[in-house]
């Protein structure tokens, strides 16, 4: 067929057909099955290391929760008496009976480590949640509500400059060293850095054109913050939250180091590590440092990797 012939046929046939208007199908063109959270999770799940971390954390959390109910578990505070000597079973290296060995007074390190993990995770999650919530709320108000800026800035500057040690010392003196004292002390000032971080982020995007437009349309501040600003910050906030958990555990270790930690009758990774630290130079006793340090590292690394992966995943630019 020559070119000309073809052209002719084209002329005779209609190039387009008129389609009937269909309201349902019209809707569909505007539809995409994109969901922010689903995409976030999809991207997150693609990261194998992160999934491993997630599984680790989930397993750890589950295990610390069910461990006391498993058969054959010992009380972390009960001193085991050696049958041979009738005395405390001290510093027994890991064996069949004591999986992680015993400490210097014959307490079961296995039980203590899981009890300690429970305590530390409890501290870490409570403190991180509290700090994230308070930090986000205050940070958002601080960054967005002009009237509050001066006051919050002043409060921030003051609180940020009061040494935490003073607050810890006072609280320990007034309330006695305990789990709640530790959590209160860490919550008292821990939200500051998150608030400042959120505030900075809010300020960066508050005056973007779309927010300006919203304001012009009379959208209330709370809606702008909730709908326009914070979702934009999900990825960075998640990262901060994820890092706040190991951060809180690290703070606990530090507070134990300067003598403001939890009593030994309440095992935590902080005081287990601090006790183990004193045995660092003794090869045969090093297991008392290594086990809690390994558990601590597993938690920190998992949260760290998860936080980073989630932060990546939460960034819509990566949702391709």
């Amino acid at each position, binding site marked *: 067929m020559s070119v000309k012939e073809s052209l002719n046929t084209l002329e005779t046939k209609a190039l387009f057909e008129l389609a009937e208007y269909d309201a349902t199908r019209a809707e569909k063109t505007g539809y995409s099955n994109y969901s922010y959270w689903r995409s976030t999770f999809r991207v997150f799940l693609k990261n194998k290391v992160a999934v491993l971390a997630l599984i680790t954390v989930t397993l750890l959390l589950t295990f610390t929760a069910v461990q006391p109910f498993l058969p054959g578990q010992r009380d972390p505070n009960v001193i085991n008496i050696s049958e041979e000597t009738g005395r405390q079973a001290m510093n027994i290296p890991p064996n069949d009976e004591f999986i992680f060995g015993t400490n210097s007074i014959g307490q079961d390190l296995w039980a203590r480590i899981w009890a300690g993990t429970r305590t530390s995770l409890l501290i870490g999650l409570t403190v991180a949640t509290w700090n994230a919530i308070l930090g986000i709320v205050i940070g958002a108000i601080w960054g967005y509500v002009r009237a509050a800026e001066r006051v919050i800035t002043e409060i921030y500057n003051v609180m940020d400059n009061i*040494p935490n040690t*003073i607050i810890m010392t*006072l609280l320990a003196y007034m309330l006695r060293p305990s789990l709640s004292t530790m959590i209160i002390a860490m919550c008292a000032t821990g939200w500051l850095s998150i608030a400042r971080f959120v505030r900075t982020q809010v300020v960066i995007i508050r005056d973007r054109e779309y927010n300006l437009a919203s304001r012009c349309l009379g959208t209330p501040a709370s809606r702008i913050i909730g709908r326009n600003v914070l979702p934009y910050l999900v990825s960075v906030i998640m990262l901060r939250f994820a890092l706040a958990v190991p951060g809180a555990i690290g703070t606990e270790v530090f507070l134990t180091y300067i003598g403001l930690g939890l009593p030994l009758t309440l095992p935590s990774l902080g005081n287990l590590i601090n006790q183990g630290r004193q045995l660092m130079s003794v090869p045969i006793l090093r297991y008392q440092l290594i086990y809690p*340090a390994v558990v601590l590292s597993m938690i920190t*690394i998992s949260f760290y990797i998860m936080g980073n992966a989630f932060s990546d995943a939460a960034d819509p630019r990566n949702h391709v």
Partner: protein
Amino acid sequence: MSVYATPTQPDRPRLGVRRKTDSLLSYTIRKIGQSLVTVFIVITVVFLLMRLLPMEGYIGEGYDKLDPEQREAILRSMGVLDPWYIQLKNFYIDLARGDLGTSITFRRNVPVAEIIGPKIPYSFKFGMGAIALSLTCGLCMGVFQAREKDRLFDRLGTGYIVFINAVPAAVYYLFLQLYITSATGLPILFAPEDPKSWILPTISMSLGGIAGYAMWIRRFMVDELNKDYIKLAKAKGMSSTGIMFKHVLRNAFVPMAQYLPTTLLMTIAGSIYIESLYSIPGMGGLLVDAISRQDNPLVQALVLIYATIGIVGLFLGDILMAIIDPRIKLVKGGGAR
């Protein structure tokens, strides 16, 4: 607790100053005024908090063997028996004269300035050394990690970063001290006159910083490389090295500038772990000691210094940032809200 705050984003809004026709001078003056108020409040709060601690703490050991009248004489000589408002008034009068007071329980009767003075240089030198080391190593590592993203170097680097963040510093510092010294023959204890004894503390101190800077610069560069101006630069045919140095690194320095002065000034606070382990007579741990001994004048002086540094550091950071990035104005144009 680390000196190395990991920089994240420029903290522009801190400078929220509204008037359009604001000169840098009047901005500075107002800023100083505000800072003075902040420092005043901080000191007063700390002052009052310290007064909540028990009287017994001022006497410490040997309390049992003193008669009540002796205890009273001792407390009186320390000036802690006066009502708090008198003490506060005296404190401010002395401060106005430039007198930070004399230590009461840390080194009895020694002027606080004489206690702090000799310690600052040690912490400062180590801090500076550590910052220099962590900046150079950290930035290089971060840049190469970003370039080698998802390849071996990046993975190794990430492994290092994760390790440093995951293992408590108290543990790996001790580890380094015990094993490196026995392996290399470096001295365990610091001696100012022995240059070899400076090496290990400085390195240990910079490990956290290296991880922090590397992590941050890597993240920054990976994010930045997705941006449109980089794509444009690539499209223009710019070499990747050129893009790195001309665009990315320069932008990366902006948020860092905000933290740099604070980080540099805060080096005088020292590192409590490192200074304790290596016997460095610096500032690390001084505040913790002073608080546990209830040496009010020393605590107040230290808080005053640290608060001032914190605030001055922020202010310098703002100025530095404005200098590096011309788009940032200390004096901001009309508020859109």
